[in-house]
């Protein structure tokens, strides 16, 4: 069994396996598939509760992942954000001395969530400029009505 605590390196290696055996597009295809099939909970929560659905979704996952973060919700402004001071997944990968993390590991967070949220009427901004230090920031905003 691969314990859930060792899932992150398993996924990093899956991305690397796909890229090396099938090419970069294969990784993107997989991320799209994951977004469509595995993120139904996020999709359903946001569809039912609006921007608060983001809060409900990440409040569960980030706590179980023991992340170091600040999460903010402003329902009136239609904005939700996560400031990740130490992503447990990326920090784990960076801390492994004997395997190299997939070079675009954090890219999945951009693809998976954007693909769910944009069709629901939200802008998704993801700052990956400090992912080499396991830090990132994402902001979800309700698109203004036309």
């Amino acid at each position: 069994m691969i314990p859930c605590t060792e899932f992150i390196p398993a996924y990093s290696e899956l991305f690397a396996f796909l890229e090396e055996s099938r090419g970069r597009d294969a990784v993107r295809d997989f991320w799209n598939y994951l977004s469509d099939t595995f993120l139904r909970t996020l999709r359903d929560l946001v569809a039912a509760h609006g921007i608060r659905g983001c809060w409900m979704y990440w409040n569960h996952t980030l706590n179980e992942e023991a992340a170091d973060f600040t999460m903010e919700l402003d329902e009136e402004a239609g904005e939700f954000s996560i400031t990740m001071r130490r992503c447990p997944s990326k920090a784990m990968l960076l801390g492994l001395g004997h395997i190299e993390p997939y070079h675009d590991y954090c890219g999945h967070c951009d693809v998976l969530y954007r693909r769910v949220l944009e069709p629901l009427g939200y802008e998704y901004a993801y700052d990956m400029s400090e992912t080499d230090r396991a830090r990132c920031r994402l902001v979800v905003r309700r698109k203004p009505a036309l």
Partner: protein
Amino acid sequence: MARETVTRSAADNVYLHKDFHGALSAGIAYLESRYGAEAVRSYVRRFTVKYYAPLVQAIKDRGLSALRDHLQRIYALEGGRIKIDFAEEEMTLEVEECPAVAHMRAHGYPVAPLFHETSKTLYAALCEGTPFVSEWLRYDARTGRSAVRFRRSAP
């Protein structure tokens, strides 16, 4: 309309996100449907050889006790019910209920048809280059109940 803020540090919570089993299962299902069963086994073997290289080295150095310690640790972490029959030359792991499969069944995550390869192929790969081999004895896809034997390979 509410404004809310929450700040957490890593020390506030225990790192145990069992939904990751569902994500791994989705990955296994995708690999099989898109590229075939051999791709699943190739991926699991590759991951095992690379990620578990320190464990493989420990098995070479200390024998099956290194693998026993690893198995006891990960199943205890996840609350799995196991039984290990240990001897220096042979060890059998009986998993009475797989915590990964149990979590997925309880939370409605599909269990990939080849999810067992994350154990069967993994154990075979762990033995590569060591004096031991694994024998996959049985598996129940509904519960993940399984048995695997590790024994010293014939000279």
